[in-house]
């Protein structure tokens, strides 16, 4: 063993020891503090009755007499629901705006450019508050709801859409039937989609620009129109540049959905926060939030890696 190897081992041992010391120090203090405050640690509280209502739940039935575990599960499904819908809509809107920024039409290009500049340079939280204020302050109450399309009603109590089986009708002070979106959900979805679409637009634009001009010309030379050249020649190549940063935008959207807590949509963070306030189980609560988001993050990046490998040049 020469001096160099010894030095390498010494440095690594020191780094690991320092990390272990920090972890031990924090854990030791935490245990002592929990002891002093008589807080029982562990996940036993999950089986206790939650006792709080949740405004809306998409997939799971829930009532205040259910357990904390069930409440948190509702939070997870709400988070996943809003993230999944948001990702689809943001991709569509973002791709459209990204392509509009490359349009030969000056007006379309400038409008798309202004959208991207403004949206990217203001905080998402401000935009969420703005959409929420817009829905609750500007829209009329349900009795005077706007009806932009037959059966679709916009009011300060949320949006109502007809479904295949039922159409919404006004009953008393609110609508019954159809599919209803609360103002909180509508504001959160709108905010996430509008914000993320601006970032996706820039990625799509950069992806298309990364394909060399000669590829367009080659497409035209074999008689393709501009649209066909984009569809069959340029896009397949641009996708390879677009997919990796897109994955991180999807991750961002999912993580940003946690801002729901600020406007009162019951996502995972919001429900976990209520749970922490009621039970005092701060460590467990924050650990659950982090574990769930880490799982989601790792799943999305695994899926995007798989997709990325599929569209790579073989």
């Amino acid at each position, binding site marked *: 063993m020469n001096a160099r190897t010894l030095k390498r081992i010494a440095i690594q041992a020191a780094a690991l020891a320092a990390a272990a010391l920090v972890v031990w120090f924090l854990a030791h203090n935490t245990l002592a503090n929990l002891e002093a405050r008589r807080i029982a640690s562990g996940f036993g509280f999950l089986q206790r009755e939650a006792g709080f209502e949740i405004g809306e739940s998409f997939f799971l039935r829930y009532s205040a007499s259910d357990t904390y575990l069930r409440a948190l599960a509702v939070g997870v499904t709400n988070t996943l629901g809003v993230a999944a819908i948001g990702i689809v809509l943001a991709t569509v809107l973002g791709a459209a705006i990204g392509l509009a920024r490359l349009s030969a039409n000056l007006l379309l290009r400038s409008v798309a450019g202004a959208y991207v500049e403004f949206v990217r340079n203001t905080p998402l939280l401000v935009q969420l508050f703005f959409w929420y204020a817009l829905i609750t302050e500007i829209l009329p109450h349900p009795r005077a709801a706007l009806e932009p399309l037959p059966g679709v009603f916009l009011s300060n109590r949320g949006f109502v859409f007809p479904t295949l089986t039922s159409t919404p009708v006004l009953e008393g002070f609110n609508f019954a039937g159809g599919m209803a979106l609360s103002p909180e959900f509508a504001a959160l979805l709108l905010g996430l989609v509008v914000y993320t679409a601006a970032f996706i637009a820039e990625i799509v634009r950069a992806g298309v620009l990364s394909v060399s001009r000669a590829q367009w010309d080659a497409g035209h030379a074999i008689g393709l129109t501009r649209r066909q050249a984009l569809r069959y020649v340029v896009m397949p190549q641009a996708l390879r540049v677009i997919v990796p940063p897109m994955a991180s935008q999807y991750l961002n959207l999912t993580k940003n959905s946690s801002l729901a807590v600020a406007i009162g949509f019951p996502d995972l963070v919001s429900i976990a926060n209520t749970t922490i306030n009621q039970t005092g189980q*701060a460590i467990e609560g924050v650990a659950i939030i982090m574990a769930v988001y880490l799982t989601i993050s790792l799943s999305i990046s695994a899926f995007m890696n798989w997709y990325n490998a599929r569209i790579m040049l073989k």
Partner: protein
Amino acid sequence: MSWLRRNLFSSWPSSLATLLVLLLAWRLLPPLVDWAFLQAVWAPDSKACRAAQGACWGFIAEKHRFILFGTYPFEQHWRPALATLLLIALWGVSLVRAFWSWRLGAVWLAGLAAIGVLMWGGVFGLPFVENERWGGLILTLLLTTFGLAAAFPLSILVALGRRSDLPAVRALCVVYIELIRGVPLISLLFMASVMLPLFLPAGVTIDKLLRAQIALILFAAAYLAEVVRGGLQAIPRSQYEAAAAIGLGYWGQMGYVILPQALRIAVPPLVNTFIGFFKDTSLVLIIGLFDLLSTIKVSLTDPAWTGFGIEAYVFASLVYFAFCFVLSRYSRRFEVKPSPAHAAERLA
């Protein structure tokens, strides 16, 4: 005429798009201008605001002191005002490339010391103001400044660690980066506000502002580290070998040869990350700190002024936009120009 043809009516779909945009503008712009300017109320008079059809900018006029300075003692508002200007000036000076030298660090230290004296007081006859009462724009700017100032050196170390050939060091850095980037900032802020007190030995307390600042630093460092790593990866291998060949040790190689080049390449994405971080400081509202967005939101709870949320948030977005837009324009100047070969290819 030919200009119009080329830019607005080059084909049927293009003409259709032009007409559609014009139609939308014709339908939307007049009511918008009407609301924002013609029918708007500018005087701080909530009765007039409620009666009017247009926007109520009087809300901003009435609340601007609280929005900008939070609960800082009213007759002392000149102090945070001066501190805000000083901080903006420091940032402005730092953006000029000609000033990039070690002397800039000294200027920053002096500037921050002056800001500390102004904000805290307690000397030179200035009454002491505890930092629980700081708020508004200066708090947003301070959280950003100190967050970046502490996170940037940390991020360089972490990025070097992630590229290190020592497996244990690399693993620690990877775990740190992926752990922080895998969870939302809000969960880190919750952790700082509810869990940090449990982490510390009995009797040691840290105030809420500092706790949030620590979470923000750890958060920013993980994201900045990935940007720095991108810069490090762009440096050709020959540079590392050349640095080793002239007999420099590891820190010499990094400090004199690799980092100066890597950081230069990374300026545009670094500035973009700075912008993102500046926007993200608004999340401290959720754990109850009085940053700019928070003071605006609290102003809306005044019974005389409820229901003017749209005006309030339009104002908030304009303030954030002013800062972010300047920075993003600035970062664009550093983007690598297409090389002549690339340009020739695009012309061909």
